[in-house]
Every structure is written in C-alpha cells, then in structure tokens.
C-alpha cells in the first residue's frame, strides 16, 4: 500500500499540523518508507493472541472519587499564552 499526498494532507489535518505543499511530498515518501517497513508485521501469525496494552501485571486502580485539591487557578494559568481573568483565551469560535 502507498500513501499519496492527499492522504498525508488528510492525516495532517487530523493531527492539526499545517504542512506546506512541498513538505507533503517529502513526508509522503518518508511515511511510505516507514509504513512499508512496519508492514512486515503482517507476516507474524498472531492467531488469537490478545493485544497487550498493559505490561504492569496489575489492574490499574481507580482513586477515590473525591475532590483532593483546588483553588489553584493561578498555578493552572501560570503558563497560559493568553490568559484573561481566570480563563484561557483563544480566537473567537462563535460568530
């Protein structure tokens, strides 16, 4: 299988990365090289082997459903590029 420029453009849109036109060609080649290489996994007979997502050997615990911090708005906003009052500001979404 092979990725074309339109597919690269679509993935970049999904990933929210603006790609210049000439970068799309370069990336199509690079991604095809990587995907062609990982394609070799299709030769492995995985039968009914379950997918492995957790190597810890324990089930992930849930914490108590309680409020255990708060009143830290200033810390939360400390790194915001454009804070307004106690909010993160972004370009206008609704006209």
């Amino acid at each position: 299988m092979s990725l074309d420029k339109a597919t690269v453009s679509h993935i970049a849109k999904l990933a929210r990365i603006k790609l210049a036109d000439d970068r799309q060609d370069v990336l199509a080649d690079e991604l095809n090289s990587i995907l062609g290489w990982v394609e070799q996994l299709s030769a492995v007979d995985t039968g009914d082997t379950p997918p492995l997502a957790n190597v810890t050997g324990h089930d992930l615990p849930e914490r108590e459903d309680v409020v255990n911090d708060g009143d830290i708005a200033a810390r939360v906003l400390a790194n915001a590029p454009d804070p307004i009052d106690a909010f993160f500001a972004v370009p206008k979404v609704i006209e």
Partner: protein
Amino acid sequence: MDKLTDLSLTAARRHLAAGDFTAVELTEAHLAAIQETAGLNAYITVTADAALAMAAAADQREAAGNAPAMNGLPIGVKDLFCTNGVATTAASHILDGFVPTYESTVSQQLWDHGAVMLGKTNLDEFAMGSSNLSSYYGAVENPWRRTDKPEEKLVPGGSSGGSAAAVAAGSAMASIGTDTGGSVRQPAALNGVVGLKPTYGRCSRWGIIAFASSLDQAGPITQTVADAALMLGCMAGHDAKDSTSAAQPVPDFSAALSGDIRGLKIGIPTEYRVAGLSAEVEKLWNTGIDWLTSAGAEVVDISLPLTSYALPTYYIIAPAEASSNLARYDGVRYGLRVDGDSLEEMYENTRAAGFGDEVQRRILVGTYVLSAGYYDAYYRKAQRVRQLIRNDFIDAFKGVDAILTPTTPSAAFGIDSPPLDPVEMYLLDIFTVTLNLAGLPGISVPAGLSQHGLPLGLQVIGRPWDEATVLRVGEVLETAAGFSHRAGQRAGGKR
C-alpha cells in the same frame, strides 16, 4: 583522592560523611566543569544558584548528622522531568517559556534523598531519537573522539544524550534519563557510562513529559554499577499519582551487589547475532560471555524468535501513543502560540512551528495507524505481536536468570554523518527496544573500546522486578572489564 569531578557517588558520599570536603565544594567543582565543557551543549539550563543553595542545605544536614542516602551529590536532570520553578523544554520549541508549578515524583524523591540539581540536560525533542540531533536547542557532542579522526565530533546517542554526555564529561556525578526504546541504555553505552532501565512501573512517571506512556520509564545514568544501585533505590517506589506505578517493595539494591554469580544461568539469544552487528561488538559480546563463565555462571543459548519484529512493533505503538500524548500541545494552556484567523488555524500554525521534523513524522505515523480503517491492521496487530514478544521472554526466563546482549550494534557516529534514512536511524535501538515492549529491566555497562577508541556497552536483561540480579551481573561485568578509560573532552582533561 581523585579529583572531585572524577569521584563516583558512593565514594563522594564516604568523603562527605568523613568531612573531607563539603557539598558546596563538590557542587562548585561540577559547576566549573559545566562551564569548561559548555561546548558539548549537554545542558539546556544550568541552575547554579539553586544548586549551591541545595548543597548548602545538604552541608547543614551532614553537620546535624541526618544525611540521607544521596546527601550533597550533584546530578543532572533530563529536561523531560518537570521541575518546579525551573524551565522545562522537552528540547522542543513548542514548550517555549514553560515553567512547571510542580515537581516530578522521581526528581522530588532524589531531592528528598539529599541530591543537588545542577541543571536540565539536553535530549532529542520529546525524547524521540537515538542521536540527540533532533533537539531544538542543538546537537549534543559526545565527549569521546575517534582515535583515527580526532577532529570529528560524534553524537552522544539519544534520547538522553545530554544526561549521558554530562556524566562522561565529568559535568555531573550522575544524571537521570528516561528510556522508551533504549534512551538511557543506548547513550550510556556510546558515552562509556552505566545506564539502567528499571522494570516498567518501578519508578513513577508522574511529572515526566509523556512520549509513549506504556513504554516510558525513568532510569539513572552513572559512572559505576554501585552508583546505579544507590540511585535506583532513591528513585523507585509506588506513587498513587501514577496508576501504572507498582505497589512492589523496593529492595536494598546496593546489598544485591555481592559479586557472586556462581550457578546463575545466563541466556544468550541467538537472534541477536543480526546483520549490522559489527565484528568488534560481536567479539566484545563473546568476551562478556567468557567473563561471566569465569565468574561461575552457566551460559545457555536461548531463542527469542520474534526479535526482528520488535522495532517495527515499537514504531507503530510508540508513535500511536505519542500522537495521542502530544495532542495537548495546542497553544492554549502553555508554551508557544502562533496566531491564526480561527481556533483551528491557531492550533495548526502552533503545532507546525512548534514541533520539529522527527516529532511531526511520528505524530503523523501515529495518527495514521490509529485512524479509522487502519487501527486493526496496524495498532491492534502491533499490540498482539507485543504480547508474543513478551511471551518469548517469559518462556526464556523459565530457563535462565538473566540475559546478556550487546547494547548497541555499533559505536557512536559523526554529528555530520548521521544515517539519512529514518528507518536506518531506528535500527540503533535494535537490542534495547525489546525490553520496553516486554516491560523488563536492563542495564548497559561499559565493557570495552572499539578499534577507533570509542566505548561499547554490554546489556544485562532481567526478569520483571529483578533489578537486583541485573545489577549484580552488571557489576561482575564491570569488574571483569576494568573499564577505566575516560573521554578525551572530559573536564580537566584525560585522567
């Protein structure tokens, strides 16, 4: 006594306890070494004032007779660990200006054990790389040079390249790194120092900027195996803030260093004799087998049949997890923002300007393998192969106590002559990546020099939670190798 910048952690602790010098003097010596070796670019941020204040506090604890295990020992911190009030970059443009308001659990535990932070060390952007060439803050230079081309600058490996180069250069007594596919062990090997990746879940990931969450694990980079044991004991332990951190008891790793490996069974995986393994690395591996045999271990040939599929598996799973983890960098809550006419365009402009080429490549691969129609064919398939790779190790460990392999297929390459093809670059992690997929602990120990005078490492792999055996075998290798070479670009010159 050795120069202050040539001491191991354990030796320095003895001297500090005996009052031979102060923690402030030890820290000043390392800050001077950082200045002297600044050309290596191992540090992104140096925290000299804070280091001296931490050292002074350590001297007070020493005087009061309540010095914890790492009291007064100055170390470097990979700039992927969030540090309260100290800029944290992940070596990425997209985190411009980011100053965490909290401290990672692992670094906090080190400060609680008395260690002193010298600064934040350079890395591949978001820990994605094997050469440190992808840092927004520039390449790191390996303090070693080839004997046949002494003018050529070499890479330190990656992604914890600055952490390893600093220890090799004498500008940190030790450092912490993170290892997702080999990022502690591979640079340790290429810099002639020790690098340990603990069992997945041994150290908390809380406060470490995430790359691939099911693979990431923090580990120490040190001058000796005993130092690695000391540091791991301070870093490890359960943390309620990381649900994957394990409620396992933390043994006394230093006590495990008995030097006695008689009767231990050491596996040698046939499949690791791959194409691309240089003749001198294979020779060193055979020498390592002889060392362990001479020390009374029994060497057993084992098979890990899925080995050749480990890297392709990793290069599906790691980018997939990265594409999800890095979705948070969008110009809204921290770091860089590049304006656009709409919210969407602001996201796209910010991420285009903020992420470097390799990070963009991996986000795009990850997005693709997780996208509708490809999820089962790529991501789900890779997770199944991952299970089979883990099963290979579980089977192998029924018959052996540890496994010996080389750490890397070859020595460090030139900064100006890296592999051009991304896939060729990925192959540098061929011997290390399997452990991350299986969640196993492993150590790289400097074992010899290449024909051109560059360090090479051997790797010991252990059962889950059995860092003790990994360290014990690692120390036997260290003793047998007697590796006393020092990098030519080390602070204060070659010993």
